[in-house]
């Protein structure tokens, strides 16, 4: 039994829900159009297709696209040694989909991590609390609009964060830059302000604004006089 055959079996069982399998680097990926059906599909995959091991559950933030979040399920079967990836999307307005905790227990912590880091919620999860950050932390740090340098938060008597020590300083790269030059504050600027330099500075500012980077007092880039 190959991963492709298993993907086709899944498609036969849920016609209209499952996309054709895409192969990349020897891995099969199928996309599920309705995230609300993920529990039924996973339960079928485990029970009838033998995917007894949920390797990993991760999420991707497609900031700027709609739907915004992609959930990625990596399935594996110990009997047939096949790997299959399921993907489904949830929107930013309603980032909720059913839990698969009661299919694979290991999903419990993975789903908590996704909730903690990206803010996608899982309905029916027995214990949907933050796991890596502390309870009550106001942001979702792995979202693309969360700056790399962090945001300050204040919770009296519980926990607090201050800006990173070098926030906006000369050594902190800008999150989400298009390329290394746009991201890297240490790029040396030429003495004379040529057209190319100006465009480079503009590009940096664009990136900074587009990604909501908090420009602290230190965020002004040094230009040689």
């Amino acid at each position, binding site marked *: 039994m190959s991963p492709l055959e298993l993907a086709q079996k899944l498609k036969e069982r849920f016609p209209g829900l499952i996309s054709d399998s895409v192969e*990349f*680097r020897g*891995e099969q*990926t199928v996309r599920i159009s309705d995230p609300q059906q993920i529990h039924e599909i996973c339960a079928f995959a485990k029970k009838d297709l033998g995917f*007894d*091991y*949920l*390797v*990993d559950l*991760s*999420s*991707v*933030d497609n900031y700027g696209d709609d739907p915004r979040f992609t959930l*990625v399920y*990596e399935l594996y079967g*110990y009997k047939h*040694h096949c*790997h299959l*990836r399921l993907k489904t999307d949830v929107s930013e307005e309603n980032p909720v989909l059913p839990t698969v905790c009661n299919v*694979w*227990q*290991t999903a*419990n*912590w*993975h789903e908590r*991590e996704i909730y903690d*880091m990206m803010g996608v919620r899982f309905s029916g999860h027995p214990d949907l609390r*933050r*796991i*890596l*950050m*502390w309870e009550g932390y106001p942001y979702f*740090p*792995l979202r693309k609009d*969360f700056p*790399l340098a962090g945001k300050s938060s204040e919770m009296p008597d519980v926990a607090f964060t201050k800006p990173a020590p070098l926030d906006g300083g000369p050594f902190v*790269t800008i*999150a*989400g*830059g298009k*390329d*290394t*030059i746009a*991201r*890297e504050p240490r790029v040396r600027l030429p003495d004379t302000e040529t057209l190319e330099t100006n465009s480079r500075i503009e590009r940096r500012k664009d990136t900074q604004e587009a990604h909501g980077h908090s420009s602290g007092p230190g965020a002004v880039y040094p230009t040689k006089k």
Partner: protein
Amino acid sequence: MATVQEIHFRDPASRPAPVPLSTPPAGAPGSEGLVEGEQDLHGEKMILNMGPSHPATHGVLRILLELDGEIITKAIPDVGYLHRGDEKIAENMTYTQFIPYTDRLDYLAPLANNVAYVMAVEKLLGIEKQITPRCQYIRVICCELARISAHLLGLGAFAMDVGALTVFLHTFTEREKIYDLAEALTGARFTTSYTRIGGLSRDLPPGWTEMVRKFLNEVVVNFDESEKLLTHNRIFIDRTKDVGTISKEDAIDFGLTGPNLRGSGVDFDMRKAHPYLVYDQLHFDVPVGSVGDSYDRYLVRMEEMRQSVRIIHQCLDKLPDGPINVPDGKTVLPPKEKVLTKMEELIHHFILVTQGVNVPAGEIYFGAENPKGELGFYICSKGGGTPHRMKIRAPSFVNLSILPKLLPGHMMSDTVAILGSLDFVMGECDR
């Protein structure tokens, strides 16, 4: 002048008799056999906070334990005290720049993390078939040395937690030698950052293979001695046998990997099931437990180290000559002398350093059999030099998720034995 003061003891007999919290009304069903004061025997449950700074938690794991006397009735692990946001950091740098961060995942086996990470990127690039044979053999040696190093510490700390301090000192002596080997190989003892995308940062130093052979001959003696101290040790057996038993079904359901999975009797090893590098050309056995208790996990680790020694010996025998890097200037930095004299190499060097390796759009998952279990990298790329998203599937994180199921019903003192036998590293768990 000092005055003598009599210490005042409270007379236990003068304490007021405990009042039962809810005395069932006389004649109520089920109250016939109730003796007055019996509820006091049960007492109330106590919440005990263990960690995050506790020697048996091997780092900064915190567990909230609900105790009924000495029996654990509920366990709530609390992780995240070592969270550094590695996945966020990875999105903001080139693939090569992230290699040093992988040292800090499972910091007891940095070489194995380096190898697993670059292999994930190479899979995304589609160049895993082009990796030179010499590089592959060296990588296997690195992985297995890391496995010995991690298991030596895991076993030593496990034994120390259940009271056998000698073993820890014993195994640590051997680990020092692995650090010396790593230092000779990479220039650093801990933070090795040895691999590069498409190759290695440097070739073996002269005389290194002899050093490894000498070490292997010494370490097997150490295995025997440690085993003599533990395997038939009555105290060790009493503390670990039938403690923390994980059934085969639970191990799979909770996604356990590595020695913890094999200890529960699942015959699965990524090196055998999906051989990467040159593992398919090497002979080794995969030890599998039968009961799934802490003692089985100990035995599996012990045997895995012996098999690692076997693998390294074969690699040293077969180690081919030749280049260590992929001959592609767009993936691996060209040699320095060429960079300084040739135009094309200079351009490649500049592009690689400033923009990184140009990776195609796509997504892959690569899992490697690391000492703690399956270390996986899910990389989602939209093209260019940085990943769009990199998820690190940390084995320690997943292995710890079984604690709420595993701990209840055990004695408080079994906690340290169970934690020791699960052999986790918080640097990897919290990322």
